[in-house]
């Protein structure tokens, strides 16, 4: 059946039950999905849900769990509409198969949703390929899981399954559907007849799924909006959760890699003998740009790799330095050969005739993802069959990429999804380098008998990342006689995704966003919040400068520019009121504020800072006001905002990857420091559930924090922060510090 909004399908599944699917993909795909998740003795009620004869409800989730709670949030959305007994609900990760591709997300992209980052398309170019190819996407990123799969598929599938159970009960009891009550996984009629969902599931197979089942009103929610415990947590406190690096197979080898430390460099030669003489070493594998040692355990492979003295041809990046990269970026902006990105009014004209013009250069460094679990993948060739184990943000895309790289049909590639020790964008497909750790593992496995686990050491992980863009921004604005922004010109280097990252909600009459390209020689990768991470700092720091230029309080200045953005204004006001913005602080402390909209969620953050005796910035407290439209699981969402802010605060205080002689300087945590417990501020989070379209949870908390902290530093010291990280500068308090 096809409706205007979606395709829903029912049929007989492998185990003899019913399949009801929701997707944009062809019917055959849904049949396949039902077969993949069908189990003996269980009726398969939809590609996204299976109801067992024991009345258990299993929700099939097509996204990857990285700690953001999606393996619990999506089942909550389905169970809500199904009126299931939550204690009977569990989840399964969908297999990496076309049948579970992100149809809903692709659809939104084709409709022109700006907040889906284009990098998620991986190697696929939307619009130019057949829908069948589009379905080779199973991505977790861009805060899309709840926003698309949840809202478009999970809720509808749950509601459809519930309608079918009611129809089955009505037929069995010969009563009208309207007299059947369905709640807590039980069907009942006033006559006293009743049955569990499990008892009625097979009978429900005889009925067509409703095409457009009515969804619940928010006031009737019993599961959504409550702090349900996450399914993945028990295994994460007793050591039983298996991450990619924990895979152990019979006869498995362990491999450690060293790639050319200079980007684009190649391996000239390496003497294998020192490694081969060491205990447990099985093989030295040479690639055009890397050398790998295979041994019987990880440490022996590491030690043997250290014993090798590979000779590299550094190639054309051998003299690259961070200073030269930044100089090139600044020169490109000054030269003015820029691509027009977005605008309204006539900014050049407005700037020309303005009396009060403010301009500043900002810059941010490269950043590594530094997931706690280093990149790794286990691969095993058996004839023309390839089996893979690892953590992937895009399971199906990874399987397709593996098949392509190995030159195999996708049917011959089996991919086992392991728990992920952090993703933050690193474990997705990257535009420039695809999935490097997966391809490396496959290439090694080709030359090794049995399964082999390829592990990046922490040093390799940090120096061979795909980095958050280092960028320079030249911000320019004009203030009118009323102290309002009349012109806003935001120019910067290198645009990635999402397009919304450079947009503001301030309603400027004349604005333009322009960017330079060709300034970045370092491999780029999406990093939690993607382009938002740098533009949030540029935009909200510069907005603060303008507030001071207009001699207006930074909160009031922003508020005055949000007259036509009531949701943003409400979020800003809530954050200010939580923080007690207008109340005096204790001596030696000051606050800063920033607001951004990220993947459909509006976040305003206030940070309160002081200086240590040696002039370093210390963040004591934070307050976040958040409007994501609706909140599925408030406990998880709060943790995402708090944790996201720590990720952003780590970048603001410490984060810097720099290049010298074409190499990444930072090697490990001592020189790429992280916020730890003692640095972590108290952080209060409150939500406004405006009922607007559902926004993301995983990335918004990361974005405003850098500007909020930098603005607080200005309030405290009068020193404007135009470069991150903050640890590079020493500050002197206006009141002598605290």
């Amino acid at each position, binding site marked *: 059946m096809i409706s205007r909004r979606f395709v829903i399908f029912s049929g007989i599944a492998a185990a003899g039950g019913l399949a009801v699917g929701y997707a944009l993909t062809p019917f055959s795909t849904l049949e396949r999905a039902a077969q993949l998740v069908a189990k003996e003795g269980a009726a398969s009620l939809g590609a996204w849900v299976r109801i067992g004869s024991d009345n258990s409800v299993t929700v099939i989730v097509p996204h990857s769990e990285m700690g953001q709670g999606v393996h619990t949030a999506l089942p909550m959305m389905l169970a809500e509409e199904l009126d299931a007994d939550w204690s009977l609900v569990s989840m399964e990760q969908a297999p990496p198969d076309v049948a579970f591709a992100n149809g809903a997300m692709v659809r939104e992209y084709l409709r022109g949703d700006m907040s889906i980052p284009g990098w998620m398309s991986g190697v696929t170019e939307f619009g130019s390929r057949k829908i069948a190819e589009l379905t080779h996407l199973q991505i977790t990123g861009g805060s899309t899981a709840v926003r698309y799969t949840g809202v478009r598929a999970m809720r509808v599938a749950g509601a459809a399954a519930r309608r079918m159970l009611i129809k089955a009960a009505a037929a069995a009891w010969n009563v009208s559907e309207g007299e059947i009550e369905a709640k807590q996984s039980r069907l009942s009629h006033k006559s006293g007849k009743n049955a569990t969902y499990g008892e009625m599931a097979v009978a429900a197979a005889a009925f067509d799924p409703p095409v457009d089942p009515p969804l619940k009103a928010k006031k009737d929610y019993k599961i959504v909006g409550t702090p349900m415990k996450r399914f993945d947590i028990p295994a994460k406190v007793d050591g039983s959760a298996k991450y990619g690096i924990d895979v152990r197979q019979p006869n498995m080898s362990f491999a450690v890699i060293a790639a050319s430390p200079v980007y684009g460099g190649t391996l000239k030669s390496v003497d294998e003998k020192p490694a081969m003489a060491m205990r447990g070493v099985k093989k030295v594998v040479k690639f055009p740009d890397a050398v790998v040692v295979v041994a019987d355990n990880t440490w022996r492979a590491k030690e043997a790799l250290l014993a090798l003295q590979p000779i590299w041809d550094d190639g054309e990046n051998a003299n690259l330095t961070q200073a030269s990269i930044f100089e090139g970026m600044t020169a490109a902006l000054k030269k003015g050969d820029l691509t027009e990105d977005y605008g309204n009014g006539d900014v050049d004209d407005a700037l020309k005739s303005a009396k009060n013009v403010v301009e500043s250069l900002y810059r941010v460094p490269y950043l590594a993802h530094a997931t*706690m679990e280093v990149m790794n993948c286990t691969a095993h060739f058996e004839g023309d069959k390839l089996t893979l184990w690892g953590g992937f943000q895009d399971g199906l895309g990874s399987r397709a990429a593996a098949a392509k790289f190995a030159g195999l049909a996708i049917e011959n590639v089996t991919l086992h999804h392991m728990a992920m020790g952090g993703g*933050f964008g690193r474990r997705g497909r990257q535009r420039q380098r695809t999935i490097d750790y997966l391809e490396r593992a496959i290439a090694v496995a080709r030359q090794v008998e049995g399964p082999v686990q390829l592990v990046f050491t922490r040093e390799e992980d940090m120096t061979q990342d795909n980095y958050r863009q280092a960028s320079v921004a030249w911000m320019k604005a004009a203030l009118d006689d009323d102290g309002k922004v009349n012109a806003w010109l935001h120019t910067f280097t290198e645009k990635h995704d999402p397009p919304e990252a450079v947009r503001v909600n301030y309603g400027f009459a004349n604005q333009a966003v322009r960017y330079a390209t060709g300034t970045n020689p370092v491999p780029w990768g999406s990093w939690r919040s993607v382009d938002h991470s740098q533009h949030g700092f540029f935009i909200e720091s510069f907005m603060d400068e303008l507030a001071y230029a207009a001699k207006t309080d930074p909160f009031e200045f922003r508020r005055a520019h949000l007259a036509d953005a009531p949701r943003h204004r409400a979020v800003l006001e809530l954050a200010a009121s939580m923080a007690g913005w207008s109340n005096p602080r204790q001596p030696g402390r000051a606050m800063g504020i920033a607001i951004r909209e990220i993947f459909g969620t509006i976040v305003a953050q206030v940070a309160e800072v002081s200086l240590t005796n040696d002039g370093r910035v210390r963040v004591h407290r934070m307050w976040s006001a958040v409007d994501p439209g609706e909140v599925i699981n408030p406990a998880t969402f709060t943790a995402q905002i*708090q*944790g*996201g802010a*720590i990720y952003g605060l780590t970048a603001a205080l410490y984060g810097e990857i720099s290049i010298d002689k074409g190499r990444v300087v930072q090697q490990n945590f001592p020189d790429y420091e992280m916020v730890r417990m003692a640095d972590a501020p108290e952080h209060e989070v409150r939500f406004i559930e405006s009922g607007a379209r559902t926004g993301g949870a995983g990335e918004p908390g990361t974005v405003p924090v850098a500007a909020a902290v930098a603005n607080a530093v200005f309030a405290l010291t009068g020193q404007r922060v135009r470069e991150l990280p903050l640890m590079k500068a020493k500050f002197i308090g206006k009141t002598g510090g605290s």
Partner: protein
Amino acid sequence: MITIHVNGTPQQVDAEDGMPLLWAIRDVLNMTGTKYGCGVGACGACTVLIDGVAMRSCSFPVGLAAGKDVTTIEGLKTGDTLHKVQQAWIDAQVPQCGYCQSGQIMAAVALLQEKSRPTEADVEEAMTNICRCGAYTQIRAAINAAARA
């Protein structure tokens, strides 16, 4: 052969004395709950207890662990009952990606063995492990709850 007592069981480990305890546990004994994070003692993901003291096993040679009692995350349960710190971790919904949590829990267990009612300063001094997901608010709450349990 080196004999170490892991979670109460004597284990023969065929390894060089200089192999870090972490790799002996993970790759020789195949107990994977203890994690590799940095290999230089900087992140704490590999924290285990050696004779009751929290140690970063990536920088502790297995030869020095001979004859000692090593407790890993797998050894905290008593039968099927979680250690009070593990239970507090579930109650406070601490883990996000969860990768660092074995080490965080071991560090917290050691802290509470030493100081049953730690102050905020005690917690900050003892808990220096990195959590890249930034679950520090929840870790703090769980330690305080476990201290009261």
